[in-house]
């Protein structure tokens, strides 16, 4: 690195050190400490916090979190692809309209949007009254405070993160490839399957990583829509720091969590690079 580029990078490096590296190091350090009955940190080395993670309670929540995140990612993918694809078939004006429509929710406070789901889903809520009115059900359904409600809230929250990268990759795709495949005898469906899907894999991957990682870290949705029953690992972590005042254990959970996120991102990247690096490099 020469002097000049260091000068440009220095603020970034400082920023990252202050807000990422130093806190992370602090968390790692604290995760190997203990605490006394009052919640104060006791400065003696121990691996107890990591051992505690393997108790069935926490392992269970950990796997639930992973599973919920996988489901959220899959549902987002299944809903976003057709939507993004539909958008690319529209005229420039309609496309702009949809793009704005998809980003509008970002302008409204996230908590307000999530609370709005309560109004829809609760026992006397809009959805239940509607279903009872048309006579599909006689008793209100318990929708709020279920895993399903959490999943719904998650998918709703993160769908833009999936639509946008897929849309971009569809837009960037060389449309002449579809003419070539049609020329070689492929029907529209087979062109889609053999050309469009692989060519937009990087968009799907980017979206999936974004959605997966942010879902695992998102405890508010589970809090509001899932109630006490559906806890995510981030709820536990938050609770260790704010409620239970067990900073060392909270730190240990955080470390495990960050590591598993990194591993998953690494796996995604690897899958992306091994099978489709060629399509990416050819564009560059």
């Amino acid at each position, binding site marked *: 690195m020469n002097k000049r580029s260091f000068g440009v990078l220095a603020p970034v490096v400082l920023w990252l050190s202050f807000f990422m590296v130093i806190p992370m190091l602090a968390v790692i350090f604290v995760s190997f400490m203990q605490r006394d009955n009052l919640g104060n940190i006791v400065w003696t080395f121990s691996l107890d916090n990591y051992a505690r993670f393997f108790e069935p309670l926490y392992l269970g929540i950990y796997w639930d979190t992973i599973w919920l995140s996988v489901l959220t990612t899959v549902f987002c993918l299944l809903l976003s692809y057709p939507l993004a694809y539909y958008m690319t078939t529209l005229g420039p004006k309609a496309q702009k309209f949809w793009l704005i429509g998809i980003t509008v929710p970002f302008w409204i406070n996230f908590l307000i949007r999530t609370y709005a789901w309560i109004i829809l889903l609760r026992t006397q809520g809009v959805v239940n009254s509607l279903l009872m009115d048309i006579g599909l059900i006689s008793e209100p359904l318990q929708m709020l405070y279920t895993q399903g409600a959490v999943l719904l809230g998650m998918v709703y929250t993160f769908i833009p993160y999936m639509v946008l990268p897929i849309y971009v990759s569809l837009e960037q795709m060389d449309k002449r*490839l579809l003419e070539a495949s049609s*020329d070689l005898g*492929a*029907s529209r469906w087979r062109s889609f399957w053999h*050309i469009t899907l692989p060519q937009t894999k990087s968009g799907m991957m980017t979206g999936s990583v974004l959605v997966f990682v942010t879902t695992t870290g998102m405890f508010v949705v589970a809090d509001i829509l899932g109630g006490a029953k559906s806890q995510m690992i981030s709820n536990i972590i938050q609770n260790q720091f704010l409620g239970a005042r067990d900073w060392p254990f909270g730190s240990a959970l955080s470390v495990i969590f960050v590591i598993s996120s990194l591993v998953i991102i690494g796996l995604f990247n690897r899958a992306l690079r091994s099978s489709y690096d*060629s399509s990416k490099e*050819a564009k560059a």
Partner: protein
Amino acid sequence: MTLSTDNGKGLMLMIRLENVEKHFAGQPVVHPLSLTIDEGEFLTLLGPSGCGKTTILRMIAGFEQPTTGIIRLDGEDVTQLPPNKRNLNLVFQHYALFPHMTVEQNIQFGLKMKKVPAKEQRERIDEAIRLTQLTALAKRYPHQLSGGQQQRVAIARAIANKPKVLLLDEPLGALDLQLRKNLQAELKQLQRSLGITFVYVTHDQEEAMMMSDRIVIMNTGKVEQIGSPRDVYERPETLFAATFIGENNIFHEERLFTVRPEKVRVTPELADTRKTGIIQDIVYLGNVHKLVIHLENEPTSVTSVLDFTDQRDWSIGQKVGVHWNLQDEVTVGR
């Protein structure tokens, strides 16, 4: 008009365009065009940029619908058929290779789509790879290939399907001169050995001359002339054809006629010649040299090409006589 595919010369008709016309947004891009192409023929569409060559090719391939007119392929009316139902292949100007597939997989794609049995797929891939000399590159991805190699893959991918017709849209346009020359010869060779009908698009007149059986000279969506390279060179029918192919001297007298520079003789003697003039420029081109002569009492210059047998000394400003034979005058329309 019969639907017979025999053109009367014993050759089979492969493509027939009947009054094919194309408008974009109400603007005519291809004026009504009728054209027949024989089986195994190498036909070239030649014309300046924007004259509608690609549009014609895309109509034959099925990517554009003619505004009016009928396209027949091997006797069958294919005007309404989508590209994937037509038994021909297009080699795109920019190759359009699939970036996520290896050379081999690119070539295999069309065979897979047509559900060719696996064993035959293998044979056809190998043959296409051999013919295009891609053996060493079969496992590479397109971005790992040079422009010329990519161009070969595009051709291999097309010929593996054994199409009745191969359409090529300026396939050599992006390549440098040397490579172009090599590939021109290779392509011509390939076409002869496969016996496939080639419809070739270029705006390079030299390329058209050396490769084609017949040339269609186009200008702003209209056909100017159709003929063998010799025909269009020696007997141009229009002013555009006369000047687009090779160099030409144009004379507006009581009629419009042209004389090729190599038919123009220059003599130091001034008596008994058609015209006299003053040498304006001398250009040495190695095997030939060229004199540009400004005619006396006329606002035109005449170019004369002299070959190596001409050992006389010419100098700029020299007054010379200019002469040609009557049979070398070619009357052209406007």
